[in-house]
């Protein structure tokens, strides 16, 4: 670990790159398709409840050899149902 340039160790970049590549290989979703999916999800949710898009996290997580799509959507304190 090079402290001054804050370069990450090559092993940790290898692991991080692999983590992402394997998720996409296993789910057969490209990063673009994943972004489109997230956008659609957000739009759909926002039709029903008030949300702050900045606080939302949607991503693929690995559990052993299984992938799951995990969304963490904080609701506003006074989250009102949208009418109409």
């Amino acid at each position, binding site marked *: 670990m090079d402290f001054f340039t804050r370069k990450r*160790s*090559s092993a*940790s970049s290898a692991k991080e790159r692999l983590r992402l590549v*394997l998720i996409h290989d296993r789910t057969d979703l490209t990063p673009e398709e994943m972004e489109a999916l997230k956008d659609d999800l957000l739009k759909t949710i926002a039709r029903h409840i008030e949300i702050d898009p900045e606080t939302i996290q949607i991503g693929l997580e690995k559990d052993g050899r299984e992938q799951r799509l995990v969304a963490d959507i904080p609701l506003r304190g006074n989250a009102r149902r949208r009418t109409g």
Partner: protein
Amino acid sequence: MTAQVITVTSGKGGVGKTTAVANLANALAMDGKRVVCIDGDIGLRNLDVVMGLENRIVYDLVDVIEGRCKLKQAMIRDKRYPELYLIPAAQTRDKNAVSPSDMVRICNDLRPDADFVIIDSPAGIERGFRNSIAAADRVLVVTNPEVSAVRDADRVVGILEAEEKGSPALILNRLNPALVKNNDMLSAEDVLDLLGIQLIGIVPEDETVIIGSNRGAPVAADGKSRAGQAFRNIAKRLQGQDVPFMDLEPQGGLWSALQKITGRK
């Protein structure tokens, strides 16, 4: 008793499948097991030279399949271990000369008189790979601690699961403990975490492997070789024994000096 059929495969080429097959076969034979190896890499025969048996070949796998010889005639006896045999690959260019059902039939013929049948799969996920896994009771996936090798291993694991071959076990080959310590190589934990399969052995990068392959003498028989030790351990695990994983600290460093002093080696 009937033989267990074990296939060694990898996805990516050159990661050490043939080396692993030759060494595991030798180590199992050293333990008194009856072993038959099959070179499944049609057109790119290699297991014969790694085992040092290239001068004894008369018939090959395709000769058996096409009825030009009996199965026994294509089984080459090892120089050192009389209960170790090799069925060499053909050097034909016709990859379709072998089918998955041919492999199943040949393995079934071998089962009654062997303890282990070990199949050396070609790289890739094509016909030769399919042939090689067709008869497998157990699959070992070999990889190196590198991005492309791990990625290809993951593809193969996915295919094996989809084919309901069960979850394979991992051989992590060519691990360099000094590089891992320096955070310049994926560790065994990293690779296991990424692939999500069980580990059956870690084989260090070891120049004795290359020297052994020059001579056609797999290092499993070399008591001083670290890689040889790792392969002997995997062979024991294949026999159901519980063998602790080797301590793969960098050689000659402060750590091993300390271990010598404290008598942990």
